C-alpha cells in the first residue's frame, strides 16, 4: 500500500499558496479540521477561497482564518453565528457565495466523481437560478449546476490508516468524505492513525485513493455550538 503519512499539520499545509481554492469539511463546528486550521493560521498567506458548509464562529474554526483576514471568499450554505464575518461582508472586505446545502454537497460530489454538470430542482424560480440553464424533465423544472474541485481539500476523520483509508464518527462525517475526492490534494487529519490492516475493508467510509496526506491530529477541542440536554 502507498504510504500517505506526513509528520503533522504544519507539514501538511506547508505548500498551500496565497489565493488557493480550498474545501474544508465540517458542519457547524462538528468534524472540522482543527489542527490544519491552526497550522494555516501560522502561514503567511491570504486571499483564500474556502468552500465549507458554514464559516465557523468568531473565535473558532474558519472564524479564526476570517479574523486574520486570510479569506477572500466563502462559498457556503449558511454563515450565521459569526459577527466578524458579518462585519467584513458589510464592509465589502469579504465575498460570499451562498449555495443551497444539497446543491453544494452534490457539486462537491460531482467534482470528485468526474461529473462536470448535473441538474437539480433546488432553487428553481429563486435568485439561485439567475443566469443558470433551466430544463424540464418529466414535467418538472431543474437547474444545471456544475461540479466543484479544489486545489486542496482539508478534512477531519475519526480513524485513518497510513494508506489514507478513513472512518468518520457520528454526524462529524458530513461533507468530509465528498470533499476528500474533490481536492486535487486531500489532506486528512485523524484522531487516531493506525497501521494498514487495522481497519475493516468493508467499513471504510473514504477509500485512500482520494487522500494524498494524512496525519494524527492533537488536542481536539471539539467545541459545541448548542449544548442541548434533556432533564
Amino acid at each position: 500500500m502507498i504510504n500517505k503519512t506526513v509528520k503533522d499539520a504544519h507539514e501538511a499545509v506547508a505548500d498551500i499558496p496565497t489565493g488557493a481554492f480550498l474545501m474544508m469539511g465540517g458542519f457547524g463546528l462538528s468534524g472540522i479540521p482543527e489542527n490544519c486550521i491552526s497550522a494555516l493560521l501560522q502561514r503567511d498567506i491570504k486571499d483564500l477561497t474556502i468552500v465549507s458548509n458554514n464559516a465557523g464562529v468568531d473565535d473558532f474554526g474558519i472564524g479564526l482564518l476570517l479574523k486574520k483576514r486570510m479569506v477572500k471568499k466563502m462559498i457556503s450554505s449558511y454563515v450565521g453565528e459569526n459577527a466578524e464575518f458579518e462585519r467584513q461582508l458589510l464592509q465589502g472586505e469579504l465575498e460570499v457565495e451562498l449555495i443551497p446545502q444539497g446543491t453544494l454537497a452534490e457539486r462537491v460530489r460531482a467534482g470528485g466523481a468526474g461529473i462536470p454538470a448535473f441538474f437539480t430542482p433546488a432553487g428553481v424560480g429563486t435568485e439561485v437560478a439567475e443566469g443558470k440553464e433551466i430544463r424540464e424533465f418529466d414535467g418538472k423544472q431543474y437547474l444545471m449546476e456544475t461540479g466543484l474541485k479544489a486545489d486542496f481539500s482539508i478534512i477531519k476523520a475519526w480513524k485513518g490508516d497510513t494508506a489514507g483509508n478513513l472512518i468518520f464518527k457520528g454526524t462529524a462525517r458530513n461533507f468530509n468524505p465528498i470533499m476528500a475526492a474533490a481536492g486535487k490534494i486531500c489532506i486528512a487529519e485523524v484522531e487516531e492513525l493506525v497501521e494498514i490492516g487495522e481497519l475493516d475493508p468493508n467499513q471504510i467510509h473514504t477509500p485512500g485513493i482520494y487522500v494524498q496526506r494524512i496525519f494524527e491530529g492533537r488536542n481536539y477541542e471539539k467545541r459545541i455550538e448548542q449544548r442541548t440536554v434533556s432533564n
Partner: protein
Amino acid sequence: MLSKNQIAQRIAKEVKNGQYINLGIGIPTLVANYIPDSLEVVLQSENGLLGIGPFPKEEDVDPDLINAGKQTITMLKGSVLFNSAESFAMIRGGHVHLTILGAMEVSENGDIANWKIPGKMVKGMGGAMDLVASAENIIVAMQHCSKSGESKLLTECTLPITGVRCVKKIVSDLAVLEVSPSGGFILKERAPGVSVEEIKEKTSGKLIIEGEVPEMVFD
C-alpha cells in the same frame, strides 16, 4: 390563538405511520414532542442522520453528534449515519415523505419565502431550497401575521422566495389552511376562539371558505 407548542401539536396530527420526516429549526422541531408513540416514524437530520433521538443527558453529550440546528442529540436503535451528499440524495430523490418548516411568507400558489430579508445580513438558505424543491408534502408552521400586524399569507411573496408552488398546508396561530392547486388558501380549521371573520381580515391572499369551518380539536 395558538401558542408555538400548540401549532406543533396540531401539525403532529398530519404525521402518518411509516413516514420519514425532516423537521426544520424552531416550531417544526417541537413537532417531535407531539408525535404519538403509536406511530412509527423516522426523523431525518440533513447533516447526516436518520433516526434522531431525544436530547442527551448531560453525561452523554457528544460533540460528534448534532442535528442540523447544531444542537447535541442522541441516536435511536436502528439509526443510521451518512454523508451530506447521501443526505440530500434522500431528500432530492423523494425518499423523505414530509418536510415541516417555518416561513416568513407564503403565497396563495404555494411559494414560500424563508431565507432572506433585503437590507438585512443574509445568513444563507442552508438546506431549505433543496427540501422545498423535493419533498412530496410540505407543511409550513408560521405566525399568521407579522409583529406589526401585517398578513404573511399573501397573493405573492414580497421577499425573495425559497421555492415555488411547493407548500401544501399551513398551520398558523390562527388557522389550518391548504394551498389549492389552482391557487388560494382553503380554510380548513380555525384556532379555538378565532372567528372566520378574523382569519379573513388577516389573510391578504385569496382565502377560500367551503361551508362550515370547524374549530381545531386537540386531544
